[in-house]
């Protein structure tokens, strides 16, 4: 401790900028980790709070996934002796159309019984003393005081909403006091009569859920068991809190990608620290020698450097925690936005939930990374020989022996990797191969960057005889300094290239898929966007559409999220034979395209998306099993298709099968093909005219749908841009760090240069050239490793994350972009060190030894 204060602190203070930059990777990694997880948890927390507030004294909830279930189920549940009270619920978010208000959560209940479970804390006189009055007026709405105030609404105010029967005006007949139930969904909550809601949302005679409380003397578990036995596997019976779990598995997808980003940043942070510490050890050899001569043991020296690592880790992690909490809010908005668009589960999360456990964990990871990074430098510090250290000269060269060992090890690892590739087969073998090739590239980097610097010297010298040669020499003479920065650059670029490669390849595959299957001329949807599924069309609209002049074919599609082997996947029911007829360039991953659609259309099988097949190891003939309100549906897989409808997987079944098991003939979207002569614009007008004031519907052109999907894809891959930004940042930090050290090491050299006549501009040039050369070497090696990394990442994503199979395609455009971006970053990074070099005192520099 005393050493830390007397020896380390003055050094850190003297090299303040470098010390701060050193921890930047840790700051970034911890911040991303904390930020993204806090955002996820905030969204999840908000969801759970809403569930909780809405639950009231509900002890158990009965649901049948997204599809809802028939009214008669309620009677059966109510008749169960263990149940004290059971009430029906429909719950759905709708867009308010009010500026800046986003979604409004509609909680539709049966007022006659519901107050036995939920406490509606009405303001003033109890407006619905007589629930029958409320019932008798299906346009009644109760909103929270908060929502009313925000939008200037009062009792008897009218609120317009688009319902499945066209636009309707609702009257506010009650206000709930803020707090409790009224604070659910960020206060954007409205209560409606459940039978009115069936109309509004087009639910037919169905409920979403039953909320219930158990009789006295019966445990919740007993009641649950009894209900599960009564209702069968198609129903989920559980406490309200369990609703979070499905939401959680969706949010998890974000966690994985954010965890990757922060691991990436920490990994780079590790290199930056390793780099700085190795340099510090060389620079402080003399000091270490003196300490050793004065009786400090090797262990003491090692601990000194490890403590410095810990100190850097603590500082960086604390800064990271603070930054993470700061960015969490913005990120949580991003996550909620994506959730609404993709999964139609909306949640307003204005406050963020800070989890002390998460912070502690992030802190520990940050500190551990830093200590780990300082391990090797600490060891080499402990090995410093006091006698040698006190003699003059600097130890910067890599010993030939060390280099030979490195290279041999690298070659061996490459061989292992090649063996793993040819062996193929199991996942462990694959990962061993991946690991080998990464470690091999790390081992090769010092030699490669040295060779490249040597190769660059003539070119740089040709550009500027003195400045160029000195820039190259600076790199050649400090291989440790150079290779550590090159390594950090290489690794981050390799990741960026892999991410971009994934994005580009997925993008291309998605476009191909869109072109092949999304070819109807018009789509008729209940919403402006594709994701939201609060509203459903009654089946009859299909016939009404068919009757419109110019329309040739109408295909109804129903999509809902169901649980398959524990994960929420997408179930699509449609007229599969009809769809197959219209597909352009039909292509199947397994099975015959027409045949599978024929079989599935006859109810003899299911078609599954390739990602589902990958993730759950399904093949032709495997049996898929889905619990439905009408019993367990078991179908053999008759075909596998490349399909990007859902990240977690999609199963296609025929409308007839869906109707039979779910007893649901509602439709989410109609695919409309026009007669040859008809114009899409005109028919769109006719549809809107036909249903104006009568139905809620949105007619979308083919291009609108495609644009929408592409936009979603873009949003999804926004993460890629974050990673690119991180890489650029790393590049800047790494280069600033190297250059700061480099001009420190070369003070005398720069002094000599200025003494014999180098103008300020010439001094700057040599430093800029050094930066550009490092960036160039990093770029070349990064692209090489990136090409390899992409191969492995594609495989990992395919088999272990989302099952999406995309072809290998090197992201040439992105890579081309990286060249100017990285070189410009390097140049930016060199500006400050360049200035520092020309500002420093010449006399001191010349006396410097």
């Amino acid at each position, binding site marked *: 401790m005393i050493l830390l204060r007397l020896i380390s602190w003055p050094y850190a203070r003297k090299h303040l900028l470098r010390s701060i930059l050193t921890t930047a990777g840790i700051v970034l990694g911890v911040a991303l980790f904390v930020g993204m997880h806090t955002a996820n948890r905030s969204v999840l927390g908000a969801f759970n709070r809403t569930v909780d507030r809405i639950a009231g004294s509900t002890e158990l909830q009965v649901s049948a996934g997204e599809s809802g279930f028939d009214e008669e189920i309620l009677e059966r549940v109510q008749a169960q002796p263990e149940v004290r009270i059971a009430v029906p619920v429909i719950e759905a978010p709708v867009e308010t159309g009010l500026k800046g208000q986003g979604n409004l959560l509609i909680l539709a209940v049966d007022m006659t019984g519901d107050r036995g479970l939920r406490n509606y804390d009405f303001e003033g006189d109890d407006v619905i003393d007589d629930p029958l009055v409320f019932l008798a007026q299906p346009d009644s709405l109760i909103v929270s005081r908060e929502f009313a105030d925000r939008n200037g609404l009062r009792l008897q105010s009218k609120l317009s909403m688009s319902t499945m029967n066209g636009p309707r005006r609702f009257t506010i007949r009650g206000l709930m006091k803020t707090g409790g139930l009224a604070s659910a969904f960020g206060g954007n909550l409205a209560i409606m009569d459940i039978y009115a809601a069936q109309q509004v949302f087009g639910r037919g005679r169905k409920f979403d859920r039953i909320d219930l409380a158990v009789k006295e003397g019966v445990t919740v578990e007993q009641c649950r068991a009894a209900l599960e036995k009564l209702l069968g596997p198609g129903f989920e019976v559980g406490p309200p809190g369990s609703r979070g779990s499905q939401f959680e598995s969706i949010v998890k997808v974000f966690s994985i990608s954010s965890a990757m980003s922060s691991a990436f940043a920490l990994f780079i942070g590790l290199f930056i620290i390793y780099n700085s510490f190795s340099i510090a050890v060389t620079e402080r050899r003399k000091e270490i020698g003196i300490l050793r001569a004065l009786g400090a043991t090797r262990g003491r020296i090692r601990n000194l450097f490890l403590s410095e690592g810990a100190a850097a880790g603590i500082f960086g992690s604390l800064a990271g925690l603070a930054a993470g909490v700061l960015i969490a809010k913005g990120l949580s908005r991003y996550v909620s936005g994506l959730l609404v668009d993709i999964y139609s589960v909306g949640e307003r999360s204005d406050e963020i939930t800070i989890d002390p456990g998460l912070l502690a964990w992030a802190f520990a990871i940050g500190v551990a990374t830093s200590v780990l990074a300082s391990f090797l430098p600490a060891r080499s510090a402990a090995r410093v020989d006091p006698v040698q250290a006190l003699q003059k000269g600097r130890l910067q060269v890599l010993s030939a022996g060390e280099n030979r060992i490195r290279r041999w090890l690298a070659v061996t690892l490459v061989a292992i990797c090649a063996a793993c590739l040819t062996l193929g087969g199991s996942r462990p073998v694959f990962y061993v191969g991946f690991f080998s090739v990464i470690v091999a590239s790390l081992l090769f980097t010092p030699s490669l960057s040295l060779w490249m610097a040597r190769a660059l010297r003539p070119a740089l010298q040709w550009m500027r*005889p*003195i400045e160029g*040669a*000195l820039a190259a*020499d*600076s790199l*050649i*003479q400090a291989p440790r300094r150079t290779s550590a920065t090159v390594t950090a650059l290489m690794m981050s670029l390799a990741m960026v290239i892999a991410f971009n490669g994934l994005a580009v390849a997925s993008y291309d595959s998605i476009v191909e898929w869109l072109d092949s299957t999304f070819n109807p001329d018009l789509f008729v949807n209940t919403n402006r966007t594709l994701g939201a599924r609060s509203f459903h069309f009654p089946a009859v609209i299909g016939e009404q559409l068919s009757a419109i002049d110019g329309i040739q074919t109408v295909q109804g599609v129903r999509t809902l999220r169901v649980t398959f082997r524990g994960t929420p996947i997408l179930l699509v029911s449609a007229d599969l034979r009809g769809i197959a007829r219209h597909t352009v360039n039909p292509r199947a991953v397994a099975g015959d395209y027409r045949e599978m659609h024929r079989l599935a259309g006859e109810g003899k099988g299911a078609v599954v998306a390739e990602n589902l097949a990958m993730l759950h190891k399904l093949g032709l003939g495997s049996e898929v099993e889905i619990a439905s309100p009408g019993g367990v549906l078991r179908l053999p897989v008759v075909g596998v298709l490349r399909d990007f409808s859902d990240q977690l997987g999609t199963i296609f079944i025929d409308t007839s099968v869906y109707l039979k098991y779910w007893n649901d003939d509602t439709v989410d979207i109609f695919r409309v093909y026009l007669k040859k002569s008809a114009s899409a614009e005109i028919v769109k007008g006719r549809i809107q005219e036909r249903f104006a004031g009568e139905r809620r519907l949105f007619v979308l052109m083919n291009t609108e749908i495609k644009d929408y999907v592409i936009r979603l894809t873009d949003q999804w891959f926004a993460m890629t841009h974050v990673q690119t930004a991180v890489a650029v940042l790393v590049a800047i930090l790494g280069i600033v760090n190297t250059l700061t050290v480099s001009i420190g090491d070369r003070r*005398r*050299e720069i*002094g*000599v*240069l*200025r*003494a*014999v*006549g*180098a*103008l*300020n*501009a*010439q001094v700057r040039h040599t430093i800029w050239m050094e930066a550009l050369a490092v960036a160039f070497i990093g770029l070349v090696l990064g692209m090489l490793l990136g090409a390899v990394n992409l191969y492995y990442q594609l495989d990992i994503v395919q088999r272990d994350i989302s099952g999406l199979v995309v072809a290998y395609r090197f992201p040439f455009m992105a890579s081309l972009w990286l060249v100017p971006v990285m070189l410009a970053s390097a140049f930016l990074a060199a500006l400050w060190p360049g200035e520092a070099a*020309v500002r420093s*005192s*010449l*006399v001191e520099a*010349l006396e410097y*030894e």
Partner: protein
Amino acid sequence: MKCARAKPGLLSSYLIDIAGVSKQFQGKRTVTALDSVTLRIERGDMVSIVGPSGSGKSTLLNLIGGLDRPSSGEIRIDGQAIAALSDDDLTRLRRDKIGFIFQFFNLLPSLNCIENVSLPLHLKGWPRKKVRERARQLLEMVQLGHRVDHLPDELSGGERQRVAIARALVFDAPILLADEPTGNLDSATGAEILGLIHDLHRNLGATIVIVTHDADVARSCIRTIALRDAKVVSDERRL
């Protein structure tokens, strides 16, 4: 060339004209390294500066060479007031008119002899071929024609100092400043280097200022200035 150098300065007939120059170093405690020193050195003179360690010799030399600027007072080199010059103009003045020889040679370890000598020429933007010719010519002049491709590490101390001298002379600088040029050499090699400097004085007519500890070196110069506690305490001319 000699002709160009003989051209008198605009305002002063002295090549080096120092008037009331002081230099303070700001640190935890302010150190006065030079205390209102006034000094004139004529063209073609050969001056030694002596004095105990810390008396301000190097500081004085650095100010003359434009490596540093005075805290107060005025310095004119060849008639030009350096206070009025920008950093880059000062650098140009130094490059074209002043050659430096340091105690620790200050060669760049990564460059070989000819590259080290070429350094100022390249910095001035001479064409490559001319640079090489000139550098080789100078290395031959200091008798290192056989060592052009060697790195400084591969040379003896005396050879390194000769490379440094060659570098100092590439532009035929009228002023040659040497800070303890023999301080890091054994006496025989030191004498050899001193001989070389005398040759330069004689043959090229350069104005030379040598900071030294060595009484023999001082004695070999025409004029000797002694510093003590930041002040000039004696200024003698030998015949």
